[in-house]
């Protein structure tokens, strides 16, 4: 599209040419061709700034990854006594930080499962439904498989982070967080 002739199209209320009009009138043109016109300079500015934002974002992601690796696995923490959790029941605990809510599920005599409670869609707390073999996120009806933590229905696409467990001396210990992408 060729650049429209500004003076030719805009007929301003006071009759003065377009260049003498206040800036807002030039910023919000009434004529459709000008409204849809994107100047080469504007386009270049947009491209440069967007590319810059992407580049900075990549560097930031790299730094975050490096910091996460440096932190290593979180310390082993005791969650509960085996005798406190009946078969088929669930308890909540915080791991590794006090604000990271997690769920511990005992599905059998020796089978224990633990996942972070945050839904991987928009971070609502998931509700365990042990009898149905699933976790349910009430916000947007997301469902996760109880045994694997993988999403089975609804908007979530990534599985719940798994908390690795160690059961010894009559107590359940959390030993680490396993973040998964699929």
């Amino acid at each position, binding site marked *: 599209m060729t650049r*429209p002739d500004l003076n030719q*199209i805009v*007929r301003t*209320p006071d009759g003065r040419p377009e260049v003498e009009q206040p800036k807002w009138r030039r910023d919000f043109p*009434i004529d*459709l*061709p000008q*409204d849809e016109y994107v100047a080469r300079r504007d386009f270049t500015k947009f491209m440069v700034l967007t590319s810059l934002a992407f580049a900075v974002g990549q560097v930031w992601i790299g730094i975050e990854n490096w910091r996460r690796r440096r932190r290593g696995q979180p310390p082993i923490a005791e969650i509960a006594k085996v005798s406190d959790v009946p078969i088929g029941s669930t308890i909540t605990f915080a791991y590794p930080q006090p604000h990271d809510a997690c769920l511990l599920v005992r599905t059998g005599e020796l089978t224990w499962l633990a996942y972070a409670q945050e839904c991987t869609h928009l971070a609502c707390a998931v509700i365990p439904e042990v009898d149905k073999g699933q976790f349910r996120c009430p916000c947007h009806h997301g469902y996760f498989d109880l045994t694997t933590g993988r999403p089975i229905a609804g908007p979530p696409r990534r599985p719940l982070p798994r908390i690795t467990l160690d059961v010894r001396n009559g107590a359940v210990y959390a030993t680490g967080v396993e973040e998964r992408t699929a």
Partner: protein
Amino acid sequence: MPVPEHLEFFIDPSRCIGCESCVQACSECDTHRGHSMIHLEYVERSRTTQTTPVICMHCDSPTCAEVCPADAIKRTEDGVVQSARKPRCIACSNCVLACPFGVPKMKSDLELMMKCDMCYDRSSVGKKPMCASVCPSQALFFGTREEIERLRKRSAAVNRFRFGNQTVTTKVNMMVPRDARPEYIDVAAAMEEDSLGGDIMLNVLST
């Protein structure tokens, strides 16, 4: 495709017979299907049955677009002011209040201002707008200036209007008597006249 430059719109209120054909036909236009965008106004309703059709005048400097805070009203290259753009219109009715001719309509159920766009789907391909194509008395006429001059020997087209201190030049023309051709038409003149209902007596109820 723009509206061909040689085709113009002419309104001749003196020829309007109030049949409302234009109102019916308008709602059949594809750009605002089902919604009639033409007004049929009564002139001095208490004294006469004279009506006049009101369509968008497509101002050279459209007040509706000037006052739009959402930058929603745009004019195409050919000077036709279009209905508000749906993604931008915030249904604030500023345009409805500002237009000197009282043309834009706020469709509150759609939250969208809609107005006469000269049947853009038709006029942009050289056809007549729906209202002009059906008007039996040709009060609404869409054609070339030569045609109108040949058909209306006693009338002339005026496209300058005065609204307070604002002079509005429009794409649409109003037919006026050729002998007394005014420089402009005063849109707000009727407001200065005495109230028409002033001398209506209510003595029917007196005993």
